[in-house]
């Protein structure tokens, strides 16, 4: 925290880093993540003109590859205490087999950024919220750690922070006793970089299974890909209108 103090170019990331320190010492009441986020590009508020989303092309998702999972951990500073049951997980790799055909599919599973998110509906304090641009995230200054959202999420996308986390200037405030989940690398988006860490890593690894972008922009890579490939939502029966879609399952 003190490191960032000397810097003059108080960019968004540094500011977030500052808030992390603040969150860790329980100060900064009234500093809400969404108000920061909505300050947006420091000029533009978050609007509903965009809706961030992703297409997972499972035919390209490689067996045994964990590039996206690793990148997410690094990007968001998800510490690992060697206790998988309680360590935070924002994205995970899953291999499913069709019970009828026996066909196997690899895919990453993370918060699906539901348009009608059950986690937001049930949250008693409103800490769980959806931004105008479709990103579902937790305001970690308001979350009381009741875990009702974790009970409600159909994808088990959320993690409760079970132990102290090493505080380093990461991208979003984090702290023991609160719930968190994938936020589509909101810090990158707010910095004008329309690419998540997972999608970037997947491309770097040469698989290009994750296509990220603005679902409302017909020319965005994700909209183009969605136009070409048949895709579906996981648990479409729940009618949550997810922002993350899958093809090939």
């Amino acid at each position, binding site marked *: 925290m003190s490191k960032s103090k000397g810097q003059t170019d108080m960019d968004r990331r540094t500011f977030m880093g500052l808030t992390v320190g603040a969150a860790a010492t*329980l100060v900064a009441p009234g500093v809400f993540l969404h108000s920061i986020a909505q300050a947006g590009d420091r000029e533009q508020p978050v609007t509903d003109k965009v809706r961030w989303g992703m297409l997972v092309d499972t035919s390209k998702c490689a067996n045994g590859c964990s590039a996206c999972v690793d990148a997410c951990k690094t990007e968001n500073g998800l510490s690992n*205490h060697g*206790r*998988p*049951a*309680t360590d*935070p*997980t924002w994205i*995970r*790799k*899953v*291999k*499913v*087999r*069709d*019970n*009828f055909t026996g066909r*196997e599919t690899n895919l990453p*599973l993370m918060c699906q950024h539901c348009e009608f998110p*059950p986690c*937001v*509906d*049930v*949250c*008693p*304090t*409103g*800490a769980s919220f959806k931004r105008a641009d479709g990103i579902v995230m937790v305001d970690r200054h*308001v*979350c*009381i*750690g*009741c*875990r*009702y959202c*974790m*009970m*409600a*999420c*159909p*994808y*088990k996308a*959320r*993690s*409760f*922070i*079970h*132990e*102290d986390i090493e505080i380093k200037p990461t991208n979003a405030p984090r702290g*023991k*006793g*609160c*719930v968190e989940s994938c936020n589509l690398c909101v810090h990158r988006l707010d910095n004008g970089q329309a690419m998540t860490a997972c999608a970037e890593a997947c491309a770097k690894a040469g698989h290009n299974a994750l296509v990220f972008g603005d679902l409302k922009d017909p020319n965005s890579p994700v909209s183009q890909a969605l136009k070409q490939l048949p895709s579906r939502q*996981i*648990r479409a*029966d*729940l009618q949550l209108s997810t922002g993350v879609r899958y093809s090939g*399952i």
Partner: protein
Amino acid sequence: MSKIHYREWGIPSPTYWGILIFLGLFIAAAGVSVLYMEHMGHWVTGMTNQIVWGTPHVFAVFLIVAASGALNVASIGSVFGKKVYKPLAPLSGLLAITLLVGGLLVLVLDLGRPDRLIVAMTTYNFKSIFAWNIYLYTGFMVIVATYLFTMMERKANVYTKPMGFLAFVWRLALTTGTGSIFGFLVARQAYDAAVMAPMFIVMSFSFGLAFYILMVMFMYNLDGRPVGDGLLNRLKNLLGVFVAGVLYFTLAYHLTNLYVTENHGVEAFILLNGGVYTTVFWMGEVIIGGLLPLAIIFHPGLSQSRCWIAAACLLVLLGGLSKVFVIIIGGQAFPMSIFPGMTIVEGSVFDAVNGQPFSYAPSLPEVLLGLGGIAMAIAATLVGVRMLKFLPVSLADEAVDPHYSAKP
């Protein structure tokens, strides 16, 4: 029947303080557990990111459900006008409040950030049934407290009936609200049932009354005050009806679930192959909490013994805890279906690989916190009856039953 006289609980001071210190030990242990859990973080508990609600929630929900049920005795007296229950009403109101306080305490102290309670009290999301419950709980306490006042203050007696009615309606809403916490979890197969709400109401009747009878027997026994056989008989018969009701709804719940094909998995899990959950269901919920107490309550010989009646009440409470355990933890241990029609063959700890259920082992601090909640409820009740006139001097049949006639 003469006028009912109430008096403070008059047991000797050393006994009184001895009991309070004994309960205080449990409360202190709960306090230490909370500090430990909050300091270390929840990884020291049995709860994980897969089983997110654990033993504290079992105790909390159990106490909250019992709280609204404890008010029943008062409701029967003032709403349904059954005279013999009237003398029992003040204690019933008191127990309702103390049990609720005990339950809420456990719930709040298990939060990830209990220090933010003020946030929970001031920032609401009105779509959340949880937020509604906060209103239901505080409202319940205020209404029952007012109801108690109208009973205990002679000048306010005229308002007892309307207040009693309000309290009765409110308690139904409260239990429905508690049941709906689970009802809203549509993605989880175990909770997706309409029968959940009425089942919670009958559960509350039964747990609350069992608690009530035990407390009356305990307090009257120590103080050497009489409790009539006729009265006890009525109470235990009523308990029998409620216990049977819970069994009936349990049956209805599982049968309706079996009717819905997509819920066959969870049914098989609870009823047949769920390991500890199956055992707790059959042993705890059905036998200990249902069939055994019923057998005692309606057994011509055993039901005449006070020890056996007390035992039946205890069994009902144990069965109640088991039932809530199966609902809360069993419901999470069963892997919900994320990919219908597919099997997860590889995945992280979040994924039920090959349909493997999630495991949970309660930890000592969690159990201590839960027991602390119960101790808190009992201690607050005892302090209440010691300070104020909650207990009728006599509950002998000739004192309370207008239709009593001594049989030769």
